[in-house]
């Protein structure tokens, strides 16, 4: 790793127009995104606390955001970044609604356990 360690490469915020990104580097970012999505999915399926379940959906939103921005950088096109703005908007709206619902449900049963509400599954 130290053989290709170039001080120019470590400039965190590249000033000006970025050079086109190589496909292999895109693979690294997409892999991180995939792992984060899988972790969010596992968390959503296994945790019983309603608040943690919604945190896991936010984790999956993050994973989608990393993939979008990596592709936006790969194609040197800013549309991917504008999509992430809308992902943030939807995440904020979802957090407001979901947390209001969670507070409402907690007032009814004094518990955040998702299995308390399993009669809703029919």
């Amino acid at each position, binding site marked *: *790793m130290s053989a290709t360690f170039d001080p120019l490469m*470590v400039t*965190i*915020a590249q000033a*000006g*127009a*970025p050079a*086109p990104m190589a496909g*292999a*580097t*895109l*693979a*690294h*970012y*997409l*892999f*991180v995104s995939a*792992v*984060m*999505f*899988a*972790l*969010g*999915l596992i*968390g959503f*399926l*296994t*945790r*019983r*606390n309603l608040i*943690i379940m919604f*945190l896991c959906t936010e*984790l999956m939103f993050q994973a989608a*955001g990393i993939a979008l*921005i990596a592709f*936006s950088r*790969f194609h*040197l*096109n*800013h*549309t991917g*970044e*504008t999509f992430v*703005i*809308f992902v*943030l*908007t*939807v995440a*904020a*709206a979802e*957090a*407001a*609604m979901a*947390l*209001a619902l*969670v507070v*409402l449900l*907690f007032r009814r049963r004094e518990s955040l*356990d*998702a299995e308390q509400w399993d009669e809703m599954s029919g």
Partner: protein
Amino acid sequence: MTRVSRDGQGNAALESFLSPLVLYLACALGAAGVFLALPRRAKGVQPIGGLIAAVAGGLAVLGLTAANIADRPNIYFYIFAVVALGGALRVITHQRPVYAALFFILTIIATAGLFLLLSAEFMAFALIIVYAGAILITYLFVIMLATQAPTEDAMEGLADYDIEAREPLAATVVGFVLLAVLSTMVFRGLGQVTPRGDATSGDEIVAMMPGRVETVLRREGVLQSGERVALDGETGRPLIDVKARTITLASGTDATRLVPWPPSLTARNVEGVGLALIGRHPGTIEIAGVILLMAMLGAVVLSRKQVQLDEAEKSRQARTLAQSMTANGAAGPGAIRGGGVA
């Protein structure tokens, strides 16, 4: 089989066979690690699971790095990726919801670091402000509002539903099968994806901003006092030729001169995002506004305090209303309202 690597040398066939194999091995090991790290009653198993997951992550990095020697991301990528994924693992495995939310903030900050590496500075800071600053604080408020009072028999004040995971084995298998499929797609399909656009596409954006061009030229010492970027007489657009890379400067009435494009004149990330947002997707901004408005209304309606009236209270109110209506039938609605309140 399409390989991502661009270096033609080396044992290509063996490498292309080996790197997915290493990746699947890492996936299986990671699944075992995450399964052990999920919340459970038994003590001491969770750290072992975390260790196994970390080893799997290292193996995956090794597989990814071996697959493409030539194009490796810089070392900061590895640091931010490890912090982000470690934080994400802790979000889903920590038994205390407050700590899970704090680890999620850590994940957000590391993700913002990854965005910086992808030269998406605007999104990096927007992420920290919106997520770590606003959304996660709301989560923390709700966690603190909606927490059961600790009872004597509960383990260390933890709620029963936080101690143990639900269906950990099935969920881990599903999650890591999905991960294996996704990473196979990344490895086999990515060679066919070719980057579009070139590094100079940002110059088109700069050509619309004569004020910024003048600032850069003044800093370079090219722009003399009294000079400014010449504007087209008919369209009012600045006379900047992106293809020929020249800028026309005007001083006084008719005197113009041509200067070359300075190398430091490039579009910033914020300028690109702003133009893409307003220029190409104006309708989606409106939709985002409607979504936020609806979410706000929904949250207000949902969290409104509901007044619970028991049956006796309801019948008493109904009786007073009926009495006032029969007694003052001709007196008009004012009397009804008075009776209802009383």
